[in-house]
């Protein structure tokens, strides 16, 4: 009975109720969206590198080195000389080492010079290995392996020629040395998807005719001549290192950090990520607090609408009372109405969230490398929804109690 009355009453005021519901829905969608981005960003960062014991680069900060070498975000760190790289590689406690050389680009994508070992040792998402979706891993000097996003965005297929540009902006392209796509990697959800991978020697080959950043006019070395050249890499940006035994990790890290020929830095990827979360955590909490405040504001808005509706419904309440409805019935009807509004709002908010996710997922993925999975709400999200509904009910108690006390006297007055 009360339920039917409540629904009928809500339906009669469809516009006001709709607006209130919309406000709650948007606030809930915002809150859940912030939560999604927060957890999604964490997960996608944490999934990008696993199985690497140390990352070695020039002495900078652990977060900077991690961001630049693995995520290609932020300021470039200094390069490390090839001599130091070999020195570290020769240490007995190093099981494997993978060089990474950044600094060139292809269109909007980074070009990364590395060795075959990268495909063997790079792991993402709890130990998964890179798989080639089409073609093969490069084995020629001018072969490249491209990430899934590179292939999809630029429409490349295996055997297509590509040109690698010097520096990040492609204002001066290395047109002499056309590369060939030898393989396309499977989608990983990591920055590898947006990377063009070439060999370390290829990075040197690109720069054969280039001195101090500009091409020597009129000089162009044919590809065959370059093939014959002794292309020893000059520098690496960073190196991924695996140790023989975890017990040696700290000793190796210290040895690299105290390496006296060159200021180097070795970081534990997991610890550097934690450090990053420590910094980001404050902003994260602030963001979450702001979106929680938006939910509170929407609920207070709902309370205000109920208050103002009480004025319009004085007669209605009085008639209910005259017909024998007890004050408690009035109270429960108002609380029920509010609960229904809050529940509708929360559910609609979830719908908005998923629509929003479906629309922004590819955009976030391609422009920020942030992959937000679309999956069933987590327990935490369910609790948020329950919390919003409960808060709606509690908030509505304030006007409901007022109506409870005033319903007869108020409505029967002649001066209305």
């Amino acid at each position, binding site marked *: 009975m009360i339920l039917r009355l409540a629904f009928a009453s809500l339906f009669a005021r469809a516009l006001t109720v709709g607006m209130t519901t919309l406000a709650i829905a948007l606030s809930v969608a915002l809150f859940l969206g912030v939560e999604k981005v927060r957890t999604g960003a964490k997960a996608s960062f944490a999934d990008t590198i696993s199985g690497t014991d140390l990352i070695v680069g020039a002495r900078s900060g652990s977060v900077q080195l991690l961001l630049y070498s693995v995520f290609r975000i932020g300021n470039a760190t200094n390069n490390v000389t090839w001599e130091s790289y070999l020195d570290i590689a*020769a240490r007995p406690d190093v099981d494997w080492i993978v060089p990474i050389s950044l600094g060139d680009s292809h269109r909007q994508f980074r070009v990364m010079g590395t060795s075959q070992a990268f495909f063997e040792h790079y792991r993402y998402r709890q130990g998964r290995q890179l798989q080639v979706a089409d073609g093969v891993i490069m084995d020629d000097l001018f072969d490249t392996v491209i990430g899934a996003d590179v292939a999809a965005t630029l429409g490349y297929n295996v055997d297509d020629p590509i040109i690698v540009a010097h520096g990040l902006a492609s204002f001066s392209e290395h047109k002499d040395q056309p590369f060939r796509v030898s393989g396309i990697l499977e989608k990983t959800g990591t920055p590898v998807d947006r990377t063009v991978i070439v060999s370390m020697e290829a990075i040197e080959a690109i720069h054969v005719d280039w001195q101090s950043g500009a091409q020597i006019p009129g000089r162009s070395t044919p590809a065959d001549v370059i093939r014959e050249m002794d292309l*020893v890499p000059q520098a690496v940006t960073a190196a991924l290192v695996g140790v023989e035994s975890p017990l040696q990790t700290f000793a190796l890290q210290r040895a690299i950090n105290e390496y006296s020929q060159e200021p180097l830095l070795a970081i534990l990827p997991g610890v550097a990520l934690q450090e990053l979360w420590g910094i980001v955590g404050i902003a994260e909490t602030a963001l979450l607090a702001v979106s929680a405040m938006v939910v509170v504001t929407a609920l207070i808005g709902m309370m205000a609408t109920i208050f103002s509706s009480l004025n319009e419904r004085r007669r209605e309440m009085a008639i209910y009372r005259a017909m024998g409805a007890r004050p408690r019935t009035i109270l429960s009807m108002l609380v029920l109405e509010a609960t229904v509004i809050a529940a509708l709002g929360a559910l609609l908010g979830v719908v908005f969230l998923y629509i929003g996710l479906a629309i922004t997922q590819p955009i976030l993925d391609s422009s920020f490398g942030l992959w937000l999975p679309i999956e069933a709400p987590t327990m935490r999200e369910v609790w948020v929804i329950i919390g919003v509904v409960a808060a709606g009910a509690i908030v509505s108690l304030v006007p409901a109690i007022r109506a409870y006390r005033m319903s007869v006297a108020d409505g029967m007055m002649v001066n209305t």
Partner: protein
Amino acid sequence: MKQALSLIALIVAVPAFAEEQRQLDAHEHGVGTLNIAIDGATVAMEFHAPGADIVGFEYAAESEADKAAIDAAVAILSAPLDLFGLSGAAACTLTEAHAELENEDTHDEDGHDEDGHDDHAAGEHDDDEEDHGDEEHDEGAGHTEFHANYTLTCDNPAALTEITFPYFDTFPNALEVEVQIITATGAQAFEVERDAPILDLGR
């Protein structure tokens, strides 16, 4: 590989011409670092703490009392299970312990020796460093650190989920220990403070 070898030979030759290296480690009073690496049943730990935290001074010990304090501290640091309480269920026993007091100058020289680059370094170079070191001692400006390495064997390493820090009771000057732990699942970092001297490894 041949290239690599020749390059290494080249690098090894370089320091003879290189200028004197000057670099120091981070040093923060009140903060010690504990690194733990777990591989199967073997647990390797290394602990660094500023001299100020352990014995309350960082000048070179001259008096008998100071020397005794350092000896006592080294003895305490050689018994890690009394300082860092590993979960009882893990059944860890100490197989090797080594603790010592280092000041940064000797520490630096150690680094050189380890790399084996210093064999042919000019004698002057070494003297320079020693002189430098002496100055520091005289002024009392050099920092000292206690360094300790431990190897433990745990019958049930999976049960190692918690570490308590009686260390803070033993050394009243210590305020914080930064813990880094490496397990098969990766590396993690924690901060343990005097107020809450229990570390839950959450595994």
